[in-house]
């Protein structure tokens, strides 16, 4: 018998510290698989965020340089401008990307910075204990929206990817999820496509991934997966938001 599925070689052997059922783990693996398949291990540089994935360098067996909270896109810009022929990606949570990092995200896209952002949208601040995120949906309870998010007091959630799609410098933006095997496959393809477009110099690419945070959603992992389908995707519809590459079908 042949091993048909195992740990990608661009991930270290270290077990993940993430909670049971956490989407970060799945996404890490997918990125690892893409790095392996595209043979990028020696030419990719990752920028982890402040967020649950802050320790990502303990898992990825690639060069990684830490960004402070929200500034990954700026740090990645610095990398890319010095090393234009390397592949540079940021890995960011929704708080990191769409709250404190809003300006950096939008301007990296506007500049058409030739980097890829993996935007993990789990609708809460995981690392700090489940506070409201800019992507927390209306009605959702968090530790800082204890009565459920209401537009009058906490304001509406923000669809950052849709905004980034307006930026003329962004070339490919897709929203996927990692709650089912089919969605996981699509996510992997999207990541691969984003890296490929970066190699071809298309400018800013982004994959937004709806991802479970069972701990702070206070749901078990299986229920969390369902919740993504049943609730979250109606606020954050899956699909390609922008594709300048001319090969829309190829995405999946």
């Amino acid at each position, binding site marked *: 018998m042949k091993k048909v599925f195992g740990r990608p070689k661009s991930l270290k052997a270290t077990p993940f*510290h*993430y*909670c049971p059922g956490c989407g970060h783990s799945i996404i890490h693996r997918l990125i690892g698989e893409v790095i392996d398949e595209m043979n990028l291990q020696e030419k990719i540089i990752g920028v982890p965020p402040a967020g649950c994935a802050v320790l990502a360098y303990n898992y990825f067996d690639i060069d990684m340089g830490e960004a402070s909270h929200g500034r990954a896109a700026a740090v990645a810009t610095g990398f890319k401008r010095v090393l234009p022929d390397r592949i540079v990606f940021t890995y960011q949570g929704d708080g990191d990307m769409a709250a404190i990092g809003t300006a950096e995200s939008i301007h990296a896209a506007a500049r058409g910075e030739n980097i890829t952002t993996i935007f993990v949208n789990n609708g809460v601040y995981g*690392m*700090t*204990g489940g506070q409201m995120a800019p992507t927390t949906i209306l009605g959702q309870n968090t530790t800082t929206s204890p009565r459920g998010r209401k537009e009058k007091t906490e304001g509406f959630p923000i669809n950052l990817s849709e905004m980034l799609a307006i930026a003329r410098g962004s070339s490919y933006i897709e929203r996927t999820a990692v709650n089912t095997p089919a969605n996981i496959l699509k996510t992997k393809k999207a990541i691969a496509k984003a890296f490929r477009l970066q190699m071809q110099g298309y400018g800013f690419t982004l994959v937004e991934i709806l991802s479970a945070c069972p*701990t702070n959603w206070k749901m078990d992992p299986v229920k969390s997966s369902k919740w993504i389908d049943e609730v979250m995707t109606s606020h954050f519809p899956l699909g390609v938001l922008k594709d300048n590459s001319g090969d829309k079908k190829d995405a999946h």
Partner: protein
Amino acid sequence: MLIKTIFSGFGGQGVIMMGYLLATAGMIEGKNVTCLPSYGAEVRGGTANCTVVVSSEEIASPVASEPEYAVLMNNPSLIRFQNQVQSGGTVFLNSSLIEDRPIRGDLVIYEVPLNDLIKQLSENRGANVVMLGAFIKKSGLVTPETMIRVLKDTFSGKNPAVFKSNRSALMLGYEYLK
């Protein structure tokens, strides 16, 4: 008198609550108390713990480097804290989950089979309060009467039944250790 106790277990085992209840009881009995829960990243994926100091004098540090008591709810807690307990100190073990035993010979050990015990309760839960009962019995840090008052203050706001089941849990543990 200055007594340090560490409560440790998985995130969901209610160790912070144990600390809170003990510290509140100590406060009601007129003692100085501090209660320091572990926090942040320390919690995720590992053990949660909570340190309570009960003292007749001002408390300098809420950290228990060498606690007199350790209440350990799972195996990783045993591994982490067994060497920190003071020589001659006392360890309360959740023997339903912890198979190992401390290798040190200078500790007093009480085993409390929480999983078995809670089966005697109506709701099959409240293992932490059972353990707390056992703990106050042997430590004598606070009286069961005070602790029952604290349980009442803490829980009857929501639902009197919750208080009652907690009281039963406490007494179950209190009476289990002879």
